[in-house]
């Protein structure tokens, strides 16, 4: 009797006209520790080779765009920091700057530099999360537990600035709600002093590590052309070799005065994405140093917001003791500030790409329409193409290196 030949594991051989491959359907997610967020991938596997992926998202959709249509402008930052919660201050500042662009508010330089400092701290925190998780998924648990401490220390700074750690709601339209206290400056100094040796240790552990390189080099690669077609932005696009950075292309908050390098990769694989983020942390540290130098050199040591009484709450002591500030306070909190009608698109370089706000105002107390350009919603659709034909464990690494944040994905 003729024995049927065993099909080659790697090939789609047809034996006597019959496909003898045994395909597996695997649900990766919605809640799986390796997806680092709530989204589902239905994988079709041949052995361990991924043939196809069906993505399901929307598990934590909270309708921010709809809610924003019923909220005074003043109350919208709390929605933005629930998007990319790993770098919430960037989202907050992005929204404030959108409003400032609409209303024509110009911030004093000191407040702008303070924004730069906090946005770069947020970028470092975001990249620490992403890069240590890449290490974790490749089997290196140490950085996740060790380098992560510095993310907590950055959160200590947020806490001292605004009272919150994760969902910061930091700053106000027109500047800052209050000046930073000495502890903030001290802690920023501490980060600048203590983080570089830790980053060096982190790099020593992973960058030329044979095991790490074997796992990440050529894992989930994408060409620059495909990345642009898929609307990639941020570190993921730069890893593919395209030097697009909103901070340079469309400078905001005085970024044009800073001297920094845009790191780019070549092959757009997991290793390049890791390295681009790693290099960006060094650049961010350098930007913070430059900002602190600029702040030191300034004669102005007090101004924290533009002269916009329509947006800045009066001091609490006055609100509790005098009529006029009380009226102003209520006027602002109830959203009675006049806003010009018009359309604005403003974007900032978020932790994982170009975070855009398309705001349409009809002059009312709430936005007529607010569309949020969430970078990971747009680039996550390239995931099936990036992992097709690779191993299941590579898909996990590719996903964590793309820095997909469920809150931003689903808005």
């Amino acid at each position, binding site marked *: 009797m003729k024995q049927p030949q065993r099909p080659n594991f790697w090939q789609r051989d047809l034996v006597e006209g019959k496909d003898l491959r045994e395909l597996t359907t695997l649900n990766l997610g919605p809640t799986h520790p390796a997806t680092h967020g709530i989204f589902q991938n239905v994988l079709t596997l041949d052995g361990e080779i991924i043939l196809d992926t069906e993505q399901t998202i*929307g598990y934590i959709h909270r*309708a921010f765009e709809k809610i924003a249509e019923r909220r005074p402008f003043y109350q919208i930052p709390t929605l933005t920091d629930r998007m990319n919660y790993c770098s919430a201050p960037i989202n907050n500042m992005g929204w404030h700057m959108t409003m400032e*662009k609409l209303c024509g508010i110009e911030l004093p330089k000191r407040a702008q530099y303070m924004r730069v400092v906090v946005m770069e701290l947020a970028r470092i925190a975001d990249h620490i999360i992403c890069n240590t998780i890449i290490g974790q998924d490749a089997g290196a648990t140490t950085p996740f537990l060790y380098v992560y401490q510095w993310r907590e220390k950055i959160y200590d700074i947020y806490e001292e600035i605004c009272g919150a750690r994760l969902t910061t709601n930091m700053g106000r339209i027109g500047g800052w709600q209050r000046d930073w206290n000495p502890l903030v400056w001290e802690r920023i100094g501490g980060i600048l002093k203590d983080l570089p040796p830790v980053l060096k240790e982190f790099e020593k552990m992973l960058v030329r590590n044979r095991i790490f390189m074997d796992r990440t080099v050529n894992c989930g690669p994408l060409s620059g052309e*495909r990345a642009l077609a898929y*609307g990639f932005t941020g570190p993921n696009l730069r890893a593919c070799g395209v030097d697009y950075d909103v901070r340079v*292309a469309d400078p905001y908050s005085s970024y044009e005065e800073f001297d920094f390098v845009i790191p780019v990769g070549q092959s757009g694989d997991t290793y390049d994405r890791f390295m681009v983020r790693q290099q960006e942390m060094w650049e961010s540290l350098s930007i913070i140093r430059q900002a602190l130098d600029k702040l030191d050199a300034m004669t102005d040591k007090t101004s924290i917001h533009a002269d916009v009484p329509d947006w800045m709450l009066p001091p609490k002591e006055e609100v509790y003791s005098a009529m006029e500030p009380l009226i102003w306070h209520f006027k602002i909190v109830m959203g009675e500030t006049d806003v010009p009608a018009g359309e604005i698109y403003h974007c900032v370089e978020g932790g994982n790409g170009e975070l855009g706000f*398309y705001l349409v105002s009809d002059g009312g107390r709430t936005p007529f329409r607010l*569309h949020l350009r969430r970078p990971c*919603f747009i680039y996550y659709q390239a995931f099936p193409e990036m992992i097709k034909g690779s191993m299941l464990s590579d898909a996990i690494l590719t996903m964590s290196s793309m820095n997909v944040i469920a809150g931003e994905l689903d808005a």
Partner: protein
Amino acid sequence: MLGFAVKTERDQLVKEAMVARGGTILQVEHERDLLCISVEKEALHDVLGVLRDDFGFGSLTTLCGMHFPGEELELSVVYHLHNMREGHRIRVKSRTAMDHPEFRTAVDLWPAANWMERETWDFFGIRFAGHPNLKRILNMEDFPAFPLRKDYPLEDPTRQDKDDSFFGR
């Protein structure tokens, strides 16, 4: 500032080219931040193709829907295109009536449009002809409404205990 001058010159060029296309362009305006053109529904795909191929707008930044209740052409789509090489952005708008809310898909121009169009379908009920997989993306598949249309209430309309006519819109 040199960069700005070049930008406006380029904007001028795009504007002239678009105006030269005659009837398809309804309106060219310079909104406070960037050049903005309104296009007839039938010509939209054509114009997007020209912008991508002849003017280098190689990236689709966003695509979103809008709803203007009570107007003749109630629904609208807004595209933000980006020419990264030269640093220009442009906003392209088009509108459609409620009885046949359909545009041609832009997935053949930018694969990134795939999910953006699904999102627009999900929230506004605007269909995109030729889309490979036009189904809801963020809401559940049997969701009965298009929630970002203005007539969809944010709060439960049957609630009696809360009068928020003083708040919001």
